[in-house]
């Protein structure tokens, strides 16, 4: 029984996905060129037990974000199976649907609705979300007056209050200041103690070692090594996968 399962997942992206005019479509139809495809994930398999935290490490473009996007359900795998058991909160790019001309509280409600909160849940948790974000003094000001740090705080606060069972985190928490960063880490630890499952992508090996029991090392879409976080981080630092 696992909270999140990837079984032999493959994911391709087309290289020339930019051309979408009718002309290109017709040319392609007449001369099928067998468009070059780029394989972002190659036979990726792993599973996370309920309550467990897994860290994703690897260079830029290794496929960490693709894994998180597939787990969120934004895209579908080309082959393989993905199973998700439980409510997911994605802390990928925060602040979806934020608009600079709307106030903090208006944006909060839109973001909450997008994240899957009901009307009642939004009203009930409104105070709590504002309190945690620490932007109470500006909540009725337009978002364009916010600093980028304040925006992240508000967005993170909404995401964390959606009562998720599985957290998908993509190095977003680094955007706030030190104080808020510490607050986020505390909150994540509390959620871990409550038995939430977490998938965390980060370039900070220290963060992975600190928060995750296990880690997965990705290179060019392939799983290099998966195992106890300490071992995988050490292998990644030395550049040699332990067999």
């Amino acid at each position, binding site marked *: 029984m696992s909270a999140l399962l990837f079984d032999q997942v493959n994911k391709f992206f087309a290289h020339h996905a930019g051309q979408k005019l009718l002309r290109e479509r017709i040319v392609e139809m007449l001369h099928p060129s067998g468009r070059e495809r780029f394989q972002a994930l190659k036979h990726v398999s792993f599973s996370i037990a309920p309550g467990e935290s897994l860290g994703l490490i690897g260079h830029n473009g290794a496929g960490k974000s693709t894994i998180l996007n597939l787990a969120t359900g934004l895209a579908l795998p080309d082959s393989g199976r993905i199973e998700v058991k439980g409510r997911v909160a*994605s802390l990928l790019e925060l602040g*979806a649907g934020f608009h600079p*001309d709307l106030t903090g509280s208006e944006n909060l409600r839109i973001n909450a609705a997008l994240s899957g909160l009901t009307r009642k849940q939004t009203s009930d948790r409104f105070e709590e979300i504002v309190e945690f974000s620490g932007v109470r003094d500006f909540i009725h000001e337009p978002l364009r007056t916010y600093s980028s740090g304040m925006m992240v705080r508000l967005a993170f606060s909404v995401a964390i209050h959606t009562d998720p069972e599985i957290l998908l985190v993509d190095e977003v928490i680094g955007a706030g200041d030190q104080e808020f960063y510490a607050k986020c880490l505390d909150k994540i630890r509390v959620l871990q103690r409550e038995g939430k499952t977490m998938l965390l992508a980060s370039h900070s090996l220290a963060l992975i070692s600190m928060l995750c029991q296990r880690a997965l090392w990705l290179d060019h879409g392939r799983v290099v090594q998966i195992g106890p976080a300490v071992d995988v981080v050490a292998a990644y630092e030395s550049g040699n996968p332990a067999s």
Partner: protein
Amino acid sequence: MSSLVARKLESAPSPPRRWHGDLLFLIENLVLKDFRIRYRNMSLGILWSLINPLVMMGVLTFVFTRLIPTGDRPFYPLFVLCGMVPYNFFVGALLSGTTSIVDNAGLVKRVPAPREVIPVTSVLSNCVHLSIQVALLIVLSVGYRLTPTVAWLWLPVMWILYITFVCGLALGASAINVYVRDTRYVVESFNLVLFWLVPIIYDFNNISPKYAILYNYNPVAALIMAMRNILIDRHPPALTLVRNMALAATVAMGLGLLIFRRLKPRFYEHI
């Protein structure tokens, strides 16, 4: 394009279901968002929704009752406005609906909320604009001493069917527009032609009978004729109009949803 769409229609994996939110709450918030963004930064605000149809009504009335007086035309301003309001809504809602998925790439790439919400919200946002224009129609009718009758109860029925019809078209067009970006230009050209193919400035009764078929299965024309039935002739809309409108709404919505559902699994890669 057709082969591409056909290929997509065949290979439709079951879409993931990771979002368990409150659909109505979400649509309400997104419509409210559009409304606030559109009107907050305008000093005249909602008045702009009135100025465009009033100017068009004035110009067309001047042309067709003074410059080219074509017979006796009682209530001509109201007659023209009954044509303009449904047409304007169709053009505005369909165009913003068509581009809605591409315009909201940020949402599609970040949030697993049901994608259908985006074009539907886009059409519903135009309803704010619309309700102001319908209010203008009603004020004008009453101004002409055409006081409300029981037939007015048909107004909401016809409009709800019409909005459903436009939502269906917007669903289909928005999905196709992700794969073929020319779709919006096709829609724009179509809208231009449509202006002359619906009885806005002229009366359906003056049409040569052999072209009547162009109007019988045209929901935009059907709504215009129904509006005139209700507001000017003061009787319920012809039953064929109601039947055609209901048929159009069902078919457009069914087909739109079908196309959208089949195409949406690959939005992420193509947007």
